[in-house]
């Protein structure tokens, strides 16, 4: 199997403050990698760099062998729930349809029958088809998370990137999301930030511990606990 992601000596800076320092990291196809580390340790910055949301100060990133700036559509992204406005007047179906937007300015873009059908399929797969016409603001945390997952999946990505998807969820919803991810991992590579939820290590196949620099990378998923305290 090939490499899903190669992060090569990447440094990210915000106004001269270093958020990620010289991190190199490889993810094999089919892996389920948990990114752990302290708050402010650069986990989100690293993900933003991979998604080309922030520029690299140095280094390079390859996604399935392509430069990350040209790899739109290969990645399904699930952000923290706090980044969007829950009061925005939009239905579940329309949120998921966003995942079918083209990589362009979208001049006179109209969604096709195929786009709609794909959305229906994914909703069925995640068992959220009954929510289709509900406004996003009326959903529970767990339901919202599934909608975001659906929006990422409808792109037909090869890799999922998740930023603390289970923060603010109750334990049963968390478990449900993890089980879903485990199922999806059979087909997809998964990279997921997890701040302080140990249960993730029952599901992830390996861990990367980041505190500005890459501190640990390996399969000893539980050993990082010690690292956090030293």
């Amino acid at each position: 199997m090939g490499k899903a992601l190669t992060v090569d000596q990447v440094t990210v800076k915000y106004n001269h403050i270093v958020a990620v320092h010289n991190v190199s990291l490889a993810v094999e196809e089919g892996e389920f990698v948990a990114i752990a580390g302290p708050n402010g340790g650069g986990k989100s910055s690293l993900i933003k760099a991979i998604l080309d949301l922030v520029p690299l100060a140095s280094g390079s990133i390859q996604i399935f062998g392509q430069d990350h700036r040209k790899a739109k559509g290969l990645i399904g992204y699930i952000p923290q729930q706090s980044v969007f406005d829950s009061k925005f007047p939009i239905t579940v179906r329309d949120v998921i349809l966003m995942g079918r937007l083209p990589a362009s300015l979208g001049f006179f873009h109209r969604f096709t029958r195929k786009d709609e059908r794909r959305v229906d399929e994914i909703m069925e797969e995640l068992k959220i088809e009954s929510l289709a016409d509900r406004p996003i603001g009326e959903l529970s945390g767990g339901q919202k998370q599934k909608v975001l997952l659906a929006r990422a999946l409808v792109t037909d990505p090869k890799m999922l990137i998740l930023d603390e998807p289970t923060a603010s969820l109750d334990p049963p919803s968390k478990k449900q999301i993890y089980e879903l991810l485990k199922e999806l991992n059979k087909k997809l590579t998964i990279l997921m930030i997890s701040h302080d939820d140990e249960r993730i290590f029952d599901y992830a196949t390996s861990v990367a511990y980041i505190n500005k620099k890459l501190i640990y990378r390996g399969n000893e998923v539980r050993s990082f606990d010690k690292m956090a305290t030293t």
Partner: protein
Amino acid sequence: MEEITHLALQHALIGGILASIISGIIGVIVLEKRLVMMSGGLAHVSYGGIGLGLYYHFPPLIGAIIFTLAGALGIGRLNRRRNETTDVLIGVFWSICMAFGVLLTQLSDIDVDFDNYLFGDIFSAKTSTLWMIFGVAVAVLFVFIAFYHVLKAYLFDEEYAEVQGVKVKGLETILFILLGLSTLIILMMVGLVLTVGLYAAPPAIAKKFTKDFKKVVLLSILLNMIFVIIGISIAYALQIASGSAIIFIAGAAYFVATFIDYVRRRRRMVDTESLNA
């Protein structure tokens, strides 16, 4: 104030209805992207251009267009960085441009009726002004329809749209230019002091009654039309400035809508409580 003629009333109504389309659409963007402060700033920045025109004897509207567009793109850049100094910088630009405009107006040899700029004077709209409003309305409608899905994605979750490969910065530049132009139009209607009210109130009311994006926009446009027509009629009947009448109606409607919404919510809460009991 000069007496308002029947023809002026006709012009005002045509201009007002066109401007309602503009502010209905742009207002939703202003509300969702939290650009209320920015658009208030833009309205005042325009006065710098008006003062410059008056002092150097070129059409003040040209000066206003240049200042507002420069302001829209400049403040837009600042807004992207979004830190605590953004607010301060908008505030400083806001007051400096206003001061600059007032200074030049007072130094110029033209006797200017400040009220018209401050509180709007749609009744003095010439045919050429109506064509300009028409042009901006067409541009706003075109962009709204052409970029409908991308725009919705941008307003809801800008970061995801960017991950998806949508050219967010390009879209934003187009929107900021439109915001500048439409602010100028609204300013002619209601004056620079009151512009923010016409952007913010209608979509805020609309959002209380529907959770569908398309309906929010259509309802905002409709509410704008109602406020503008009633406002212009009152202004005509009482022979007063158009702006204060329009904004007063919009503001009153906002508070009534908020009250109705509050009562409905309470009733729903009581209903569920009694169901649970």
